[in-house]
């Protein structure tokens, strides 16, 4: 079972490759979701700076195309698990920005009523299963949800997102083994943003240039995808999701992406050069990339895009308003939900 390198080639600015085949709504939604994540994260960063958000706050800026493209390819009945870098995943699964931002501010209106924070949110309704803080631990959990899909004979798959740093954890390989052994409908999405905190992928992972090979010993096919190109992600996602749902077993997707901001908020950023960050921002930005192609092809006009900008701006402003006015959780909440109450 050979691993394949996806058609990851960088897309020239203005290139219309891939865009023509899609209707306006699909392209519009992809653009809109990425922009929502970007603006949401910028606002979260700002509110953190104002002391409204505490603790860790891992922003997704730069990586938007990964979750946006894949979740656009998935169905609402498919499930999602991720790590602490989870705000984008929640927005892409359709969770309410208000509830997400209010969780970041630790308020009663947050998805976890303020008891989870930035790293721990869930939505049973949107099939979003967290938000996990222990590097690597979410991978077997994702396979467990895939196991449940299969056990219940559902036509669904579980998308498990994790970093390239997490990929070195032992439990990931325990999971690959079981997922392949039991032919689970599991998609393992490696978000290779090139760094695990301050350690570059080359310093942490053997044979870092082909992480999608890591399932080969278990016969799990993998592919590399340009995670800065939302259309490439979407197309690869469609294919892989269909394949996994046909019962062909687990699949690994290595998304080559980049995080613009620090690991969390307080990051000395001494481990990479300013030029490197600038290069990704100016040449590979997923939002600018799509925007350029939209205008070139004429899928939407400048005015159409400005209207989306305005809409997103309002959504984020409303979320910020909600997140700062929602009350802190009632003190009695300290003691609730430790256990599920039994009669």
């Amino acid at each position: 079972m050979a691993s394949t390198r996806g058609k990851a080639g960088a897309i020239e600015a203005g290139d219309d490759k891939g865009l023509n085949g899609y209707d306006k709504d699909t392209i519009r939604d992809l653009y809109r979701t990425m922009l929502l994540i970007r603006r949401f994260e910028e606002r979260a960063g700002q509110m953190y700076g104002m002391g409204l958000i505490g603790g860790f706050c891992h922003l997704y800026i730069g990586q938007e195309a990964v979750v946006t493209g894949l979740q656009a390819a998935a169905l609402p009945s498919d499930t999602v698990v991720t790590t602490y870098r989870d705000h984008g995943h929640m927005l892409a699964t359709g969770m309410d920005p208000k509830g997400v931002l209010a969780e970041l501010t630790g308020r009663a209106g947050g998805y976890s009523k303020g008891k989870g924070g930035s790293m721990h949110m869930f939505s049973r309704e949107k099939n979003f299963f967290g938000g996990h803080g222990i590097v690597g631990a979410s991978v077997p959990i994702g396979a467990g949800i895939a196991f449940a899909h299969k056990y219940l004979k559902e036509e669904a798959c579980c998308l498990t997102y994790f970093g390239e740093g997490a990929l070195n954890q032992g439990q990931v390989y325990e999971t690959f083994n079981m997922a392949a052994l039991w032919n689970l409908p599991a998609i393992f999405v490696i978000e290779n943003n090139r760094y695990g905190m301050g350690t570059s992928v080359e310093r942490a992972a053997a044979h870092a240039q082909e992480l999608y090979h890591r399932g080969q010993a278990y016969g799990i096919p993998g592919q590399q995808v340009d995670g800065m190109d939302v259309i490439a992600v979407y197309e690869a996602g469609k294919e892989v999701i269909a394949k996994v749902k046909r019962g062909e077993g687990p699949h690994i997707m290595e998304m080559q992406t980049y995080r613009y901001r620090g690991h969390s908020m307080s990051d000395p950023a001494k481990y990479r050069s300013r030029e490197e960050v600038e290069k990704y921002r100016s040449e590979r930005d997923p939002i600018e990339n799509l925007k350029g192609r939209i205008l070139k092809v004429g899928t939407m006009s400048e005015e159409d895009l400005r209207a989306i900008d305005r809409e997103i701006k309002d959504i984020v402003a409303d979320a910020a308003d909600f997140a700062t006015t929602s009350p802190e959780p009632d003190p009695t909440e300290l003691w609730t939900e430790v256990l599920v109450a039994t009669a």
Partner: protein
Amino acid sequence: MPIEILMPALSPTMTEGNLARWVKQVGDSVAAGDVICEIETDKATMEVEAVDEGTLAKILVEEGAEAVVVNTPIALMAVEGENLEEAAQGASSAPPVAAPAPASLSPSAPPPAVTVHEPAAAKPAAEPEWSGETETRTVREALRDAMAEEMRSDSKVFLMGEEVAQYQGAYKVSQGLLDEFGDKRIIDTPITEQGFTGLGVGAAMYGLKPIVEFMTFNFAMQAIDQIVNSAAKTHYMSGGQIASPIVFRGPNGAAARVAAQHSQCYASWYAHCPGLIVAAPYSAADAKGLLKSAIRNPNPVVFLENEILYGHSFEVPKDGDWTIPLGKAKVLRQGKDVTITAFSIMVGKALEAAEALVAEGIEAEVIDLRTLRPLDTETLVASVMKTNRLVSCEEGWSFAGIGSELAAIVMEQAWDWLDAPVKRIHGADVPMPYAANLEHLALPQPVTIVAAAKEVCYR
């Protein structure tokens, strides 16, 4: 109305920082996401990105400025349609998100005026005294029967673990289950505790009811992160949205002559953790009734069995729907002179000791704790108020052990009733030795309990 740009904090503890560099200058147009300036502390440098768009109208804090207090306005930005000079005159209103952080976020905030106490948990009712028919069962059979009965009535229940299916269980607890339920529900796993435990937790989060068997709890140390961080904490962290109805079961404590890595009691490790329920039965009837309750319970339950007890026989009620409530201890023997508590295999030793104490004229009350979290403090405290003395027994180490917890509880809740210091009986504070004589010395024996009971009775 121009927008005030405020000095941001890099971390919750940062109070001031330096303005290293202005990237944008007065008159520059700024789009959301553009870097406007760089700030630094002794620990880190951060680029400050614009959240709103507009034109930089005035710089209020020049670059190079040191010790700029967090939330100080550092620049003014004119929004679309605004005149630069007018904007530079000042912000007429605060930007929409400039609401102050709630008082409790400030490190210097006084403690909240209301102190909230832990609410008293609802107490489960004890199981009714069984007067119906019984059958003789080993603990091993009782555990198997419990699983089989629950699997018959709930298709979401399944068993996974090493050697549970074809081999019929490393200790033969799952004997016959593969035949009855098939390999979709009785699942042999690879020897990967962390992985299959995490997988079980994921399946539970989606609504299945896994029973995860550990060949012994010694190996669950590889999986304790998934048990504590994933299974126990997620319901709370999700604001009550995601439950983990899962049972982790297998033999715990000392077996016989298997040395240090295979002989350890984990009771106090798991009992320490909120979000878990921890049971450790002694008799076959309790093993069956408690395991059925554990499988039905919507929470993660750590179910500590004992290898040596697997072959012991007891009378078990003949009724597929009979269960034992989690959280209820059982007084196995009434007595007025001293309370002896135990769980799992130590219950047998405590009963033996109580028998021996009769000859000494001491009437011991023996309590089988059965569940360690939530602990039945009511039964414990009521008994100590009657006997005024407590001897606690466990195989595990004493430091921060179950006995230490019981001692604290009776000190807090029955201080005035205590006529002697609490005595803790426990395993020797060493890794379990292999040699037969040393192993015997390392484990608490009935004579140790007898001596302790006499000591607290001042005999």
